[in-house]
């Protein structure tokens, strides 16, 4: 699956967890934290994305992404490796 599709899934689930972001134009450098997501929101977004992709990756391996683009790349790389 191309990274862009993973990115789109992250965006989709971000809007589900935080409906107030509906209408926001997401870019790769957007930080979930700066968008107002607290640590629990961020974990939720990651878990929902993994479920949509039907992949199992230890969540601790996905800590440390600084923005949505990095998160999408991390998930993409870990699911194809």
């Amino acid at each position, binding site marked *: 699956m191309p990274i862009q599709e993973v990115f789109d899934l992250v965006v989709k689930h971000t809007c589900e967890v935080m409906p107030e972001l509906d209408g926001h134009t997401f870019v790769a450098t957007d930080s979930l934290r700066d968008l*107002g997501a*607290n640590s*629990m*929101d961020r*974990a939720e977004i990651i878990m929902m994305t993994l*479920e949509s992709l039907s992949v199992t990756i230890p*969540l*601790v391996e*996905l*800590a440390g992404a600084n923005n949505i683009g990095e998160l999408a790349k991390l998930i993409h790389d870990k699911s194809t490796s």
Partner: protein
Amino acid sequence: MMPVGIEAMNVFAGTSYVDVSKLAVHRGLETARFENLLMKEKTVALPDEDPVTFGVNAAKPIIDALSEEERDRIEMVITATESAFDFGKSMSTYFHSLLGLGRNCRLFEIKVACYSGVAALQTAANFVLSQTSPGAKALVIATDLTRFMVAEGGDALSEDWSFAEPSGGAGAVAMLVSDNPKVFQIDVGASGYYGHEVMDTCRPLPDSEAGNAELSLLSYLDCCENAFLEYQRRVGDVDFVDTFGYLAFHTPFGGMVKGAHRNLMRKMAKARPAAIEEDFQRRMGPGLTYCRRVGNVMGATTMLSLASTIDNADLSGGAQRVGCFSYGSGCCSEFFSGVVQPESQTHLRRMGIAASLDDRYELDMAQYDLLLKSNDAVRFGTRNLELAGTTVPEARASLGRERLFLKRIDEFHREYEWIS
């Protein structure tokens, strides 16, 4: 197999607290999504309260209810903590002395972050099951506190403490473990444990915490799922929804367990959001009641959630199985279970845990900030200090019954006094 578990249990969560939503406003935290974290109040440890006063105040009513013969059968006191004030001397020695226990007794302390209370409980249960000393009991005291310290002239108050400050509480849970488990009968062997090395949160410095809260949260979620899967593998016919009437999870803050529950409900039961919410309120709400009022008490938190579950569950229909999950950073975790009877609730409610939470004095923000500065007087390594009655007299006045306080430190030796 012989029964084993908790014969008697009590919680002590201090003499004063702050309202965490007021604290969040006071610190200028982002409050828009603060509600989702499900925090309400947190106990604040006063300078003349320490892990020993919390532990003794929790254990005293349990010991007082025993006959002399029963008391002499306590052959093990295990302290579970990450808040010790000595690397060598075990706090169990203070508990042993202040509670007047017999001398033929093992006294030791264990550490494994927030998993310590459950590690101690299972160690005690296995001592009973081993039958090396038939009829013996073990006293487990899980006791922890967070003291946020501010040095004069420092800028820590303006730093981003995020949610660590509003969630960090103080308190202790005492448990008498024996072959007469009137309060909580452990399902022997029904344990899924799961651990590995991860540097999430830790206390590499005295009186201070460090680490990565986000990594810790993700590790908790990983462990919760894997510990449950191992429990299921060992026990066999287990259904996450039907097997447990109630769930008591380690609760750093309410939003954390809500996320863990949602994850398991989606994966194990393919449940929809409305069903997940109903299940959460029904099976986890009772356990959250006290946790939301005390804050994270580290090694004691899972057992605080269990006590809250037993006190607040609807047991009118008979016995219920409680699924428990404990996670300690670093990390080690365990999913286990036990059974509570309607009589368990009667026994536990005699301790008056809810009333003792109501009795606490509410600190205003000025008093609270002042405490953060005065905490420095009792920092790790304090050699000599006179304390008696020097802090927050209103908190002492709010007490409904006799409580233990730290009176002085004399050449590192701690001396305590009973105040009523």
